[in-house]
């Protein structure tokens, strides 16, 4: 790892004499899970109309939408290469750590080798607190198949890959029957807080366990279950949808008025695919969230009554109450231990 003042700086500790660099933003085909993949590579999740909607809510929603809409949460850089060495040159937007997130998650590039359907963790790198521009060399796994989970809570301003001269880099698609993505819509937990590294948010774990494409539309504090968001999700062709809309509603009445309406709107667009509803991820006995969970259960029960292809995961019931003090780093944000449990349950339902 070499920290840089400018992305144009010559490298001092990494030898890049025989390396040529590609601007990855010119190669959107290498990125998976990016909503705007066809037009450009800016990683923006939401169109202007949904960004603007946050003005109707509390100030934190506006701030977090500005901070995270362009964060490549759940986006993967996948490719095959015959270059034995790779050098990444990256300029991130933010230099500083977040209160409840490890830097290797918020700003982490989490590297896996893909061997058949298996993902073997190689390493994770990030610039560290106080830095945002860096170069990092990694050794390519023998088969040249790489999947890198991008930062969960930072934006990428510039992104270059250096490969050995005369070597090639090619797309690494998911198998044909796994290309239709699973869509995740949720809050800060679903965005990935507080996994230890970016690859270990539960949507990313699901992508590995099922070897399937995903799209993570989650944005901390901005999960409001709006009709425009339902329209956006409705417009996307997908394999399944995970709705983790709960705690960002802030108020029980608002939640009661919006949860089922949001679900029904999405169901209109996708009458047959599996939709999984999640209850609150709350692990400190916050009383109002019991009411939230009842509302989610009502939406689920009504859907089952209509014979819809809908499932419910009660996140609290995945754990014993005496595990609550280590399931999450605070009242809600899962450790990897929690992330793997919820991911496994989602995979079980989708496999069924």
């Amino acid at each position, binding site marked *: 790892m070499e920290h840089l003042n400018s992305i144009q700086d010559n490298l001092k500790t990494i030898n890049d004499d025989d390396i040529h660099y590609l601007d990855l933003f010119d190669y959107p085909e290498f990125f998976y899970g990016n909503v705007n993949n066809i037009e450009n590579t800016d990683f923006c999740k939401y169109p202007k109309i949904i960004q603007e909607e946050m003005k109707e809510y509390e100030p934190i929603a506006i701030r977090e939408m500005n901070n995270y809409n362009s964060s490549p949460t759940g986006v993967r850089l996948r490719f095959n290469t015959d270059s034995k060495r790779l050098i990444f040159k990256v300029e991130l937007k933010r230099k500083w750590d977040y209160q409840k997130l490890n830097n290797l998650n918020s700003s*982490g590039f989490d590297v896996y080798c893909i061997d058949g359907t298996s993902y073997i*963790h190689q390493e994770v790198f990030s610039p560290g607190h106080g830095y945002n521009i860096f170069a990092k060399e990694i050794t390519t796994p023998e088969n040249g198949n790489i999947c890198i989970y991008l930062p969960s809570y930072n934006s990428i301003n510039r992104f270059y890959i250096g490969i050995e001269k005369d070597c090639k880099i090619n797309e690494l698609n998911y198998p044909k029957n796994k290309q239709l993505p699973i869509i995740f819509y949720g809050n800060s937990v679903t965005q990935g807080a507080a996994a*230890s590294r970016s690859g*270990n948010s539960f949507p990313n774990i699901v992508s590995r366990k099922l070897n399937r494409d995903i799209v993570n539309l989650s944005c901390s504090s901005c999960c409001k279950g709006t009709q425009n968001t339902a329209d956006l999700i409705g417009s996307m062709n997908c394999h399944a949808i995970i709705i983790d809309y709960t705690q960002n509603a802030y108020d029980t009445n608002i939640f009661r008025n919006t949860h089922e309406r949001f679900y029904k709107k999405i169901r209109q667009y996708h009458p047959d695919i599996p939709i999984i509803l999640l209850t609150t991820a709350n692990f400190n006995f916050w009383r109002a969230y019991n009411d939230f969970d009842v509302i989610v259960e009502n939406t689920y029960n009504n859907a089952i009554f209509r014979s819809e292809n809908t499932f419910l995961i009660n996140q609290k019931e995945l754990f014993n109450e005496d595990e609550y003090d280590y399931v999450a*780093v*605070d009242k809600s944000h899962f450790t990897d231990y929690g992330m793997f449990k919820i991911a496994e349950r989602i995979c079980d339902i989708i496999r069924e």
Partner: protein
Amino acid sequence: MDLLKIKEKSKGVYHFKINANRFQIHYKVTNIKEGYYPHLGVTAREGLVLLYKHPQKELWASIEAYHNSNLGYVNMSHMLSDNISYEVLLYTPLLSDLEELIIETDDEHHIEYIDDNDNPQILVCGGSTSFGMGCTTVSLMFSNILARKLVANITNVSFDDKDYIRRLRECRITDSHNKYAVGIIELNEIDFDEKSSTYLKELINDLNSCCDITIGWYYLEEATAVCEEVLKEEVNNASIILKDVSHILNDENRDMCSYGNGYINDSGNILIFKELFSTICEVTKWNI
């Protein structure tokens, strides 16, 4: 209540009882250690973490994790009614010092410091994992989970240093004349040269002299399995229970528990806690 006046200014945990469902924490962090710590949460480096024991359920749960830029306004009204008495654990940061730590509430409520000295005493010593490196918050260190679940008082003497066995030996843990029900020592990444072997043997002797039971734990990757044999030989004649927790790095758990850079994350700490908890319950026959 000025917690630093009650308990000496040292890294660790403060335990108190309070009957206000709203209170404030005034704290000032100093001497923040500079360095590259992307595998350690900000709150573990320079913040506070608070847990409370739910008075009816008798279970610990999180209140909040604070960064040093916060003044801690604690609002428990979502979980508890006012004037209900409950216990709080406050964990201090790993890579900085506290200059101020005051809990404030209005005159109608009271705060009472809880002295845990009558609880079973456990000594935890080791290297970077025991120190807490890899954790997002201090409350997720295996030693602190153990303390909560065993209702024990933990003394943690650990170093984020590969040469931690030498440094532990130089600490002369027996000099304090403290006695412990259980001693737990991390046995990872030890260089089995002559000096380290001597330090290790002396250290285990020290532990055995001040602890009723000594447990050594280690995780080894497949490539270093030979170390396990060496380790067993080194401690063969000592009275120590060896606990292999290498399953945290097996195919099933590696992705969940490790960063791939030698550090173990929160989940690794949780699995280490589970192993040590069951071993301690088994050998001490404590009724947990």
